[in-house]
């Protein structure tokens, strides 16, 4: 493209073409789906075979699947960072949703394992932690989309609170943990956002 003068309609056409070109371009080659697809398939089908043929243990493949999957995902993310040529807003948001999802998944798995490691009554799993982990996911997506650090910190606090709730058996203390997590993770960022918007309006 040489440095020449353009008419107004040529300018508009060029803008439209370039915006369309950038939108159509995406870097997702399905690697994440393929990696996790195989990890989850092997864990599911392997566990089926293990139970069918009475191999030793039932959960070891699932316990193995998570660290293997995470290592593969980290490696593929690093590779993608090296090879990326552009980063669209949609891809950026999808990446953040992915981080939030996997952090929630990890928190749930950690919480469930902690629960079974300490409980005396394995048939009666406590559910409160799941809610806080889900709240944290929602907060993380908002915080990262708005680039608002207090909400991201709040999300991390709620993930940790959710995990901790699986360890605490007394509901009274679970509610205390929940209240602290909501106070620091929800209310503080909420009021900071309120002050920010008030400042912008004045």
């Amino acid at each position: 493209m040489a440095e020449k003068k353009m008419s107004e309609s040529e300018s508009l056409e060029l803008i439209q073409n370039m915006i369309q070109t950038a939108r159509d371009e995406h870097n997702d080659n399905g690697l994440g789906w393929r990696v996790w697809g195989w990890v989850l398939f092997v864990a599911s089908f392997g566990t089926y075979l293990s139970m069918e043929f009475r191999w030793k243990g039932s959960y070891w493949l699932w316990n193995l699947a998570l660290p293997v999957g995470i290592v593969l995902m980290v490696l593929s993310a690093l590779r993608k960072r090296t090879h990326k040529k552009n980063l669209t807003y949609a891809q950026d948001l999808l990446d953040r949703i992915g981080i939030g999802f996997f952090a929630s998944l990890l928190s749930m798995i950690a919480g469930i394992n902690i629960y079974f490691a300490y409980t005396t009554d394995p048939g009666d799993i406590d559910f409160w932690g799941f809610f806080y982990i889900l709240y944290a996911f929602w907060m993380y997506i908002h915080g990262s989309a708005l680039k608002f650090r207090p909400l991201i910190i709040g999300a991390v606090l709620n993930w940790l609170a959710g995990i901790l709730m699986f360890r605490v058996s007394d509901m009274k203390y679970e509610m205390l943990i929940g209240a602290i997590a909501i106070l620091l993770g929800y209310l503080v960022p909420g009021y900071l956002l309120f002050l920010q918007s008030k400042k912008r309006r004045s």
Partner: protein
Amino acid sequence: MFKELDPILHTPLRLAVVSLLISVREAEFTFIREKTNATAGNLSVQLNKLKDAGYIDIIKQFRDNYPQTICKITPTGIKAFEEYVANLQTYLKAGQ
């Protein structure tokens, strides 16, 4: 009342670059070159003009021992682009 179109943006290559960058969070030099069909030398010159005007940020870094140039539009660049499009619309409406 017609306003003069921003001379920094009113050239094909610079306008193409800013239009690309407005749609993505950041883009590599090679991506921009591929999409604009520009030569590396010409693109480099035009990117520096946009940078001098404060419309884009250019980040030069190394990845795996290879140099990498990342470009991002700045808030000034976004504002200039929006004004350019608004002015363009007044010209086009007048021509109808």
